C-alpha cells in the first residue's frame, strides 16, 4: 500500500518544477498577460514529454496516467503557467483515444506540441446567455463561449447531447473572438459557427464524461498548486514583514489565518491524488470523486486566495508582488467546467439523490 508518488513521479515533479522555476518566473507570466505568447513555454514542456504524457506509446506518446497529469498540473498552477496543458495534453488526448476513428496523426502532433486542441464544452455543461450550438448534417451553427485555448489549431466542441465534434480552427464559417477575463494567465475565445463543417468523433456520452472528469480533476490540481503557492507566499511574507516592532507572523491573528489555510488545503492534496488515481483505477468512484474534488478545491481555493491576500495587507492588493495572478487563477479554475454548486448537484445526481 502506498498513497503517494512513485520514484518516477517524484522525478517528473522535480523536473517540471525546475523547468518552470527557471523558465516561467513571474515576469514571464506578466509578458504573457500583456499579450505575449506561450509558445516557447509549451514547446519547452513538450520537449520534456509533458504534451505526450497521456498519449499511448503506440501513438507516439508516453502513456502515463491522470495522476502524472495531476502532478504536472499542480506545478503549472504553482507557477501560474500560461500553457495549453488542460486542453491539448489532457482533455483532447483523452477524448481522442476513447473516440471513434483513427486520430493518430493528430495525436502525434499533439505529442510533440506542434498542434494544439482547444475545448468548447459549455453547451453540454451549462449553456449561458448568448451561447448555443446547433448541429445539422455535420455542420455547426451558433456560438460557444469561453473555449480555451485562444491559439489552438483545432477545437473539440460538445453539443447538448454530449456528442463531440472536431473542427479546424481555420475552417470556413468559424470566427474566433478573443474574450478578456480576469485571469490573464490563460486566454479564452468565443467561437462563432456559421455552418462550420465538423467531424463527429463520438456520440457516446461516456466519452464526453470521461473527458470532463479528467478535466475537472486537472483543474482541481491546478488550484491545489496555485493555492499552495499563495499559502507559501503568505507565510514567507508574514515572516519578513514587520509591524509594531515584530514580524506579523508572530501575531496570533496572522498565524491563525495561515493555519486555517494549511488546514483546509492539506487534505486537498490527498483528494486530488486520489481523484486522479480513481479515474483510471477505481471506475465506480471516479465520476463522484472528480465532481467533489472539483467543487471542494473551488471552495478551498477561494478561501485561500482571499486569506493569503489579506495576510499580505495592502501589498496583496497591489500588482507589485503579482499575487493577484494566483488569486485570479483560483478564481477562474472555480468557474471553468462547472461552478461548484452545479458540480455538487451532479455529485448528488450520480448517487441518485436528486429527484
Amino acid at each position, binding site marked *: 500500500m502506498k498513497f503517494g508518488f512513485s520514484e518516477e513521479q517524484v522525478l517528473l515533479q522535480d523536473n517540471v518544477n525546475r523547468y518552470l522555476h527557471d523558465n516561467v518566473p513571474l515576469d514571464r507570466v506578466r509578458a504573457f498577460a500583456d499579450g505575449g505568447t506561450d509558445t516557447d513555454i509549451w514547446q519547452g514542456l513538450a520537449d520534456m514529454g509533458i504534451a505526450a504524457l497521456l498519449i499511448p506509446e503506440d501513438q507516439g506518446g508516453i502513456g502515463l496516467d491522470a495522476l502524472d497529469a495531476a502532478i504536472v498540473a499542480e506545478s503549472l498552477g504553482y507557477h501560474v503557467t500560461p500553457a495549453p496543458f488542460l486542453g491539448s495534453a489532457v482533455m483532447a488526448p483523452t477524448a481522442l483515444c476513447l473516440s471513434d476513428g483513427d486520430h493518430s496523426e493528430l495525436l502525434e502532433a499533439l505529442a510533440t506540441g506542434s498542434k494544439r486542441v482547444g475545448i468548447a464544452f459549455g453547451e453540454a455543461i451549462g449553456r449561458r446567455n448568448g451561447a448555443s450550438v446547433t448541429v445539422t448534417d455535420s455542420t455547426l451553427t451558433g456560438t460557444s463561449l469561453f473555449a480555451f485555448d485562444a491559439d489552438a489549431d483545432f477545437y473539440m466542441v460538445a453539443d447538448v447531447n454530449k456528442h463531440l465534434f472536431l473542427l479546424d480552427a481555420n475552417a470556413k464559417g468559424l470566427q474566433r473572438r478573443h474574450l478578456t477575463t480576469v485571469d490573464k494567465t490563460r486566454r479564452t475565445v468565443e467561437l462563432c459557427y456559421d455552418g462550420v463543417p465538423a467531424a463527429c468523433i463520438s456520440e457516446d456520452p461516456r466519452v464526453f464524461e470521461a473527458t470532463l472528469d479528467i478535466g475537472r480533476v486537472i483543474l482541481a490540481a491546478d488550484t491545489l498548486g496555485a493555492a499552495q503557492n499563495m499559502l507559501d507566499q503568505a507565510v514567507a511574507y508574514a515572516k519578513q514583514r514587520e509591524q509594531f516592532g515584530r514580524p506579523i507572523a508572530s501575531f496570533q491573528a496572522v498565524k491563525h489565518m495561515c493555519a486555517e489555510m494549511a488546514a483546509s488545503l492539506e487534505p486537498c492534496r490527498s483528494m486530488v491524488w486520489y481523484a486522479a488515481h480513481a479515474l483510471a483505477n477505481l471506475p465506480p468512484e471516479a465520476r463522484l470523486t472528480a465532481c467533489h474534488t472539483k467543487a471542494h478545491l473551488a471552495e478551498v481555493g*477561494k478561501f485561500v486566495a482571499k486569506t493569503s491576500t*489579506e495576510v499580505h495587507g495592502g501589498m496583496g492588493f497591489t500588482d507589485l508582488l503579482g499575487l493577484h495572478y494566483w*488569486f485570479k487563477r483560483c478564481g477562474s479554475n472555480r468557474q471553468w467546467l462547472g461552478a461548484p454548486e452545479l458540480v455538487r448537484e451532479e455529485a448528488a445526481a450520480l448517487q441518485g439523490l436528486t429527484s
Partner: protein
Amino acid sequence: MDLEFGPEYEDFRQEVKDFLRQHGAKSPIGTALRSNETISWQKLLIENGYTARTIPQEYGGYGAQPDLIQSRIIAEEFAHARINPGLGGQGISMLVPTLLELGTQAQKAQFIRPTIQGEMVWCQGYSEPGAGSDLASLTTSAVLDGDNWVVNGQKIWTSTAQLADWIFCLVRTEPDAPKHRGISFLLFDMKTPGIEIRPLVDMTLAANFNETFFTDVRVPKHQIVGARGEGWQVANAILAHERDSLGNPNITLARLNALIDLMKTETVNGEPLIDNAIYRDRLMKIQGRVMAMRFNELRVLSSQLNKDQDPSIARMIVKLQGTELRHDLEGLGIDIMGEVGLCYEDNPHTRTGGSWQTQYMFFLGLIIGGGTSQIQKNIIAERGLDMPREPKVIKPSPMTAQKGGQ
C-alpha cells in the same frame, strides 16, 4: 420608534427636490477636476447649501448649523435623482474639517475656500511601504533647516497624487521621541522640487493609487498643522471619520438590487438563475445581512441625533461587516454566472460593466485598507468590549515593569 423626519424636514426635502428639478440639468456627469463645468456646479451647490453646508461663510462655505437629517436628505435626494452631489475627495472630506478645528487663521483663510470650490485638489500622504497597520512607525523625515522643513522619504496609497495640487502629509520631525510623539502634520505644494510620483497598479489592473517619493523637498516652516510632534493626534481625528464612510449600506442595497436583476436575466440551460434554489438561498442570506446593516445605520444616525443611546459598537463594526458583506455579494454575482462571471474589461459578454469582478476585488482591497479586518477586530475587542490590549512585548524599562507588577 419614529422613522419619519417630521414635517419641517419634508419642507426641506421639497426644497431640495425643487432645486434638482430646476438645476439638475447643469450637473456635470463625472467629476473632471478643475473643469469650468465642475467648478461652476460646485459653486452653485455651495450657494444653495447643498455642499460645504456647514463651512463658515468667511471661508467660502454656506455657513449653516450642522444638521444630520438635512445632510441625509440632501444625500438621499441627489442619489435618488442621480445628480452629481458635488466634489468629495480627501481634501474636502478630511483636510478641511481638520483645518477648521486645528488650523491657524492664516491656514484657514488660505486653503479652505479654494479647496471646497474645487480649485485646489489634495492628496493624502500617510501610509508608507513599512508603515501600514502600524502607521505610527512611519519614517518619512522632515528636518528643520532654517525656515524650511526638508522632507525625505516615501509614501504609498497616495490616491490622486498625480492630479493633486497639494498634499497633507505625516512626517517624522522628532526622531528620538516615542513613535506617536515624533510625528508632525505638514501641508505642501506638489509642484515643489524633489517630488516624484509613480502610479501603483492594483489587482483590478487600474492605477487608482500612487507611490510618492520625496527627495530634499523644502517646505516652509509655517505649513504645519497643530504643534510640532502632535501630528499623530491631528491625523487620528480624521482617520476615525474615514473609517465611518466605508461600507455604506445604501450603496450595498443598490448592488443587491442589481444582483437580483442579474439573477432574473442570466440563465443556465435556459433556466433563470433566480430559479436555482441554492443561489437563491445565498441571495436571501445576503439580503438579510444587508437589511441588518441598513437598520444598524439608522440606529447610528438616530443615536447621533437624539444622544439617547451609546452607538459605539454599532459604529465600530460598520467597516468590518460592511466590506465583508459587499465582497460576498459581489462574489455571488460572479459565482452564479459560471465562466461568464470571469469576463473583464473589453469582453463583449461582460455584464453590468464588469463591475462584479472589479467590485469583488476592490472590496477585498477595502477589507484590507483603512485598517485591516484584523485591526478592526482589535478595535472592537479593545474599545468596544473593553478587552485588554496586546501586552507589550518588551517593557520600556525594568523599573516600570516591576512597578506595574506591584
